[in-house]
């Protein structure tokens, strides 16, 4: 009978802590509806991989390696960047870029709201992280799960588990993180600024050319971002072409559903207690939060600076929607605008900035990869 209890004595306290963390993630997913598609599988996975001698992850038994299914999935779907790229086809197919094409100056808000990525990079270096980990932590500020996975994995970061948990958790709480920062940085008068919106007609040709041109330009000027941008724009081209409706529907529903189902539980292999429970995990969670804060601040301050020069003022809150968390940050800005002035409709401007954030965050990730590759 002894063999039944053998494994029980292999259980460590750090593994039990990971069960609790997994339980908290499952609770947040179910009770608080926080990014449930990712946090629930990650939470369950955190329990699964932290069972003593878990057969779900690779084990060395009598000197022989026995590959676990979750490690197999990680090696086949994440370490080669397949899952995040497939997810990007789905995201591209879901996004309508019309608000951005009809009001292209919103794209600059997307760029400004990447400020948090770069400031967090320097902060992470200051806290003693090596370059590859600092860049991977900084990319939490992309507010974009697949980009975070892509960059952290590309750089082979030791903290990919904590980075992914931070990225998805903070995206879910954008409506809590952003309002106090926006309020602090703007006056009531600024929040009341109305912006005219005249929906310009965007032709089908423009909508089809848009993803092709973005891909070419990104490839030429930020080549490290071209895999992500390319797949994002491919999904969008499938959507806008009008001749691939069934594929577009699959790209919007079945594909991201299947990939997401596997992605969360696969990521959990990096949540084994020996990798996850350390002081650096807490530091990463703190830096990730700062990345979101500085992203928001960067966008809002950019709007305020623009107003110094513009005759027709912009509502600086729009800058906060430049982060890639779509569509949460656009909704936050719209709601805050309506709170100050119920007749103020900022939604379309905010959505324009928000989809620009999607492109800019990937570009920022590619830019960071290009720049640090000279240092590695």
């Amino acid at each position: 009978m002894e063999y039944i209890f053998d494994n029980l004595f292999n259980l460590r306290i750090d593994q039990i802590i990971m069960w609790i963390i997994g339980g908290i993630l499952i609770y947040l997913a179910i009770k608080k509806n926080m990014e449930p598609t990712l946090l629930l599988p990650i939470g369950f996975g955190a329990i699964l991989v932290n069972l003593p001698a878990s057969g779900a992850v690779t084990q060395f038994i009598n000197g022989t390696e026995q590959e676990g299914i979750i490690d197999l999935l990680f090696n086949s779907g994440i370490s080669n960047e397949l899952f995040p790229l497939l997810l990007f086809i789905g995201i591209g197919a879901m996004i309508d870029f019309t608000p951005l094409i009809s009001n292209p100056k919103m794209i600059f808000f997307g760029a400004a709201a990447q400020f948090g990525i770069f400031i967090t990079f320097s902060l992470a270096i200051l806290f003693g992280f090596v370059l590859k980990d600092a860049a991977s932590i900084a990319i939490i500020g992309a507010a974009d799960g697949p980009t975070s996975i892509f960059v952290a994995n590309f750089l082979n970061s030791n903290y990919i588990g904590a980075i992914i948990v931070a990225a998805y958790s903070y995206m879910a709480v954008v409506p809590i993180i952003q309002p106090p920062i926006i309020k602090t940085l703007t006056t009531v008068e600024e929040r009341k600024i109305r912006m005219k919106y005249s929906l310009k007609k965007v032709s089908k040709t423009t909508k089809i050319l848009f993803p092709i041109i973005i891909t070419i330009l990104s490839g030429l000027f930020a080549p490290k971002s071209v895999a992500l941008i390319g797949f994002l724009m491919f999904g969008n081209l499938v959507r806008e072409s009008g001749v691939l409706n069934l594929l577009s529907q699959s790209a919007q529903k079945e594909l991201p559903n299947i990939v997401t189902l596997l992605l969360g539980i696969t990521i959990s292999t990096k949540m084994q207690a020996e990798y996850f429970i350390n002081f650096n995990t807490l530091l990463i969670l703190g830096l990730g939060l700062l990345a979101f804060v500085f992203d928001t601040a960067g966008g809002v301050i950019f709007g305020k600076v623009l107003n110094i020069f513009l005759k027709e003022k912009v509502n600086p809150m729009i800058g906060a929607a430049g982060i890639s968390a779509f569509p949460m940050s656009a909704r936050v800005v719209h709601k805050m605008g309506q709170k100050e002035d119920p007749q103020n409709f900022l939604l379309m401007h905010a959505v324009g900035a928000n989809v620009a954030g999607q492109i800019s965050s990937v570009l920022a990730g590619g830019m960071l990869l290009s720049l640090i590759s000279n240092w590695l």
Partner: protein
Amino acid sequence: MNVNLFIKTLEIPVFGMIGVFAVILIIYVFIKLISYIFDK
């Protein structure tokens, strides 16, 4: 605190941010251009 590396690597965020704005500016010009041609 790794102040030395922090100072040494300051060029990365500076050039990174400039780079993002530069590429975005190019994209902006092209969006305006295709809109001008096809959505007049």
